[in-house]
């Protein structure tokens, strides 16, 4: 009886499967069934029109996704402004001055290529819903571009830019791009985060275009033939809020792996290693778990950054900028591999690949030198930003960082960093005229800050925590990289590292008594030999 009914059920299942196969096969001829979404945006009437601007696309999006822009309005991606609760400092791209292109203010037309909005300016309307750029994060064609000079707008009609230059920027058709939208892919994030600082890999060192399609050696999580993570697998976004921030770094996550629904885990940063791996991730070599209270995972598991054959900038000296070539154009000097080592508009650079990080105690508090802060050349190098941390605050781990050094303009009289007007088609922009006086005066005026009229250059340092490009475990740091006298952690204080540290007094006495025992034995033995000969 049971057997018969089993056979009957099996028959039904087979028939059903056959039907499904034949049935879906017929549809597959037209278009494969999408399994990662319930909506095929190319079928929506709202997106089948000729869009004249990015904002028109956004309006179409908002007709269904009614809350999207308002969610975006609450994010750092939109505001470029965040108050660090630990220091009270107002950070974000609208406030900080860095030692790459130094500042977004006064340069929005160029910098806003990486703003998720349309038309960023000093007087931008941050409340306008149609100013949100949905496409830059959601389009999947790879054809969407926000060229520099257009304040974050895409160019829809062929346009001569810069004006009267004879160079044409090809217009793009926004309709197919709008119809392609889907969940954010790594290329969407990479559009800005891989190219920060003015080019591929320039800024972070652990983020560059090699992560578009990395092998396992480069990124054990993101390799396509492996786990194939996207950025949002870790930076698990809810309501458009992306967890994980350099402004508010999680220096130490001392919790177990995150569990869905667990009340204590509410609001935790999902982008930490520990949020998945917990505190005892090493199963086979459990002794390694002894490190997790002092050492960030990244320290051993990212032995070097810029490992994907894309070099990262390590040094930028603005003070040498301004040279022109024979034709009066800003000078360009390239190295053997074609990377620019000198630009008349930017100064001297140093590039490096496979860079060993520096290591610091880091508790996540990122303290900046802001536009108002007093700086003095006698104290150079000045830290543009410096992570706080100590072995004793209970909140710090030993982290790898990229230390980026530079030399940049400052006001020696007012003793402040300066906002420089770099980009723009106007007469004051440094990249047009190579004139520091005009460029800084214009930048400071736009930023509404006092400027003495004097310019000097000051050495600066910025710190970039290294957290991407996690290597497979067999490529993690070997023990003796740190457990040795002059290893990678030679400068780290406040922790006893076997193999590096020893109590000198104990060592001296210890070898002393061992030697004493040896010498005593030797002396005694010799006396035995000689005395017995006599007797």
């Amino acid at each position, binding site marked *: 009886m049971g057997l018969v009914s089993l056979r009957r059920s099996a028959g039904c299942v087979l028939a059903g499967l056959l039907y499904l196969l034949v049935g879906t096969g017929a549809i597959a001829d037209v278009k494969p069934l999408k399994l990662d979404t319930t909506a095929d945006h190319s079928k929506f009437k709202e997106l089948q029109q000729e869009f004249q601007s990015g904002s028109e696309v956004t309006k179409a999006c908002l007709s269904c996704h009614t809350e999207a822009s308002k969610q975006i309005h609450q994010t750092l991606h939109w505001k470029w402004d965040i108050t660090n609760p630990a220091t009270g400092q107002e950070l974000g791209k609208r406030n900080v001055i860095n030692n790459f292109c130094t500042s977004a203010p006064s340069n929005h037309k160029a910098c806003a290529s990486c703003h998720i909005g349309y038309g960023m300016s000093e007087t931008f309307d941050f409340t306008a819903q149609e100013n949100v750029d949905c496409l830059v994060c959601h389009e999947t064609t790879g054809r969407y571009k926000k060229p520099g000079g257009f304040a974050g707008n895409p160019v829809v009609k062929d346009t001569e830019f810069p004006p009267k230059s004879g160079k044409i920027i090809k217009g793009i058709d926004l309709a197919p791009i709008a119809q392609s939208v889907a969940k954010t892919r790594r290329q969407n994030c990479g559009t800005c985060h891989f190219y920060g600082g003015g080019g591929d890999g320039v800024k972070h060192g652990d983020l560059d275009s090699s992560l578009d399609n990395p092998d396992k050696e480069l990124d054990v999580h993101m390799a396509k033939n492996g786990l194939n993570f996207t950025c949002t697998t870790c930076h698990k976004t809810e309501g458009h809020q992306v967890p994980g921030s350099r402004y508010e770094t999680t220096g130490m996550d001392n919790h177990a792996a995150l569990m869905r629904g667990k009340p204590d885990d509410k609001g935790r940063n999902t982008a930490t290693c520990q949020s998945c791996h917990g505190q005892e991730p090493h199963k086979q070599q459990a002794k390694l*778990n002894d490190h997790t209270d002092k050492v960030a995972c990244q320290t051993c598991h990212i032995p070097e950054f810029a490992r994907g054959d894309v070099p990262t900038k390590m040094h930028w000296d603005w003070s040498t900028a301004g040279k022109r070539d024979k034709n009066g154009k800003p000078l360009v000097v390239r190295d053997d591999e074609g990377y620019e080592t000198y630009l008349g508009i930017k100064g001297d650079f140093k590039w490096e690949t496979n860079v060993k990080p520096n290591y610091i105690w880091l508790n996540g508090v990122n303290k900046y030198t802001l536009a108002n802060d007093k700086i003095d050349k006698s104290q150079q190098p000045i830290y543009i930003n410096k992570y706080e941390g100590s072995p004793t605050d209970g909140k710090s781990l030993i982290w790898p960082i990229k230390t980026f050094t530079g030399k940049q303009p400052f006001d020696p009289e007012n003793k402040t960093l300066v906002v420089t007007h770099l980009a723009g088609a106007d007469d004051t922009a440094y990249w047009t005229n190579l004139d520091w006086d005009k460029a800084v005066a214009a930048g400071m005026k736009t930023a509404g800050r006092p400027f003495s009229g004097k310019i000097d250059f000051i050495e600066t340092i910025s710190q970039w925590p290294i957290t991407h490009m996690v290597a497979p475990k067999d490529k993690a740091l070997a023990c003796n990289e740190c457990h040795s*006298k002059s290893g990678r952690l030679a400068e780290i204080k406040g922790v006893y590292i076997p193999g590096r540290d020893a109590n000198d007094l104990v060592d001296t006495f210890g070898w002393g008594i061992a030697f004493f025992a040896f010498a005593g034995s030797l002396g005694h033995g010799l006396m*035995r030999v000689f005395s017995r000969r006599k007797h």
Partner: protein
Amino acid sequence: MAERIYIFKRFERFWHWSQAALIMFMMLTGFEIHGTYSLFGFAAAVSYHGIAAWTLIGLWIFAVFWHLTTGEWRHYIPTTEKVLLIAQYYSSGIFKNEPHPFKPTLQSKHNPLQRLTYLGILVFVSPLIWITGFLYLFYNDWTAWGLTDLQLDWVATGHTIGAFLMLAFLVSHLYLATTGHTPTAHIKAMITGWEEAD
């Protein structure tokens, strides 16, 4: 014909030599971990040191059982009787070919100086090494055990002090092994079990 006594039993000799090998191996790996030299590489040294430690603990469980069940533990009862005489022998008599004032017997195979030395090892050096060694092994559990104020450098330094004391003992022990009536008499006894009195 010299008098022969079967002084070191089969298990005792096995215990002695395997313990000797393990302790020397642990010194070799331990001082590498300490940063004194590079031999196996830090990772391997740590791993070997741990394996040797657990092996030695296993050996000790058998050794303690053996000592208790056979009554051999009595050889380690400390005494000061004749200790000055023995000290006098090693500092003077030995050079004049005088006979050793202590004759090992089945009832008492260690001379008083040995008994005092082993007492020192048992009550001071061994506990120092084992307690700090255990703490070292279970570093991650300190918080759970309530040892929140314990610092790794204290534990490591204590462990190192223990290691140096063991090293000093080992050097002296190796030398004193040659002070029998012939330089190899004691060593032969430890291998064959038979002690020849002269």
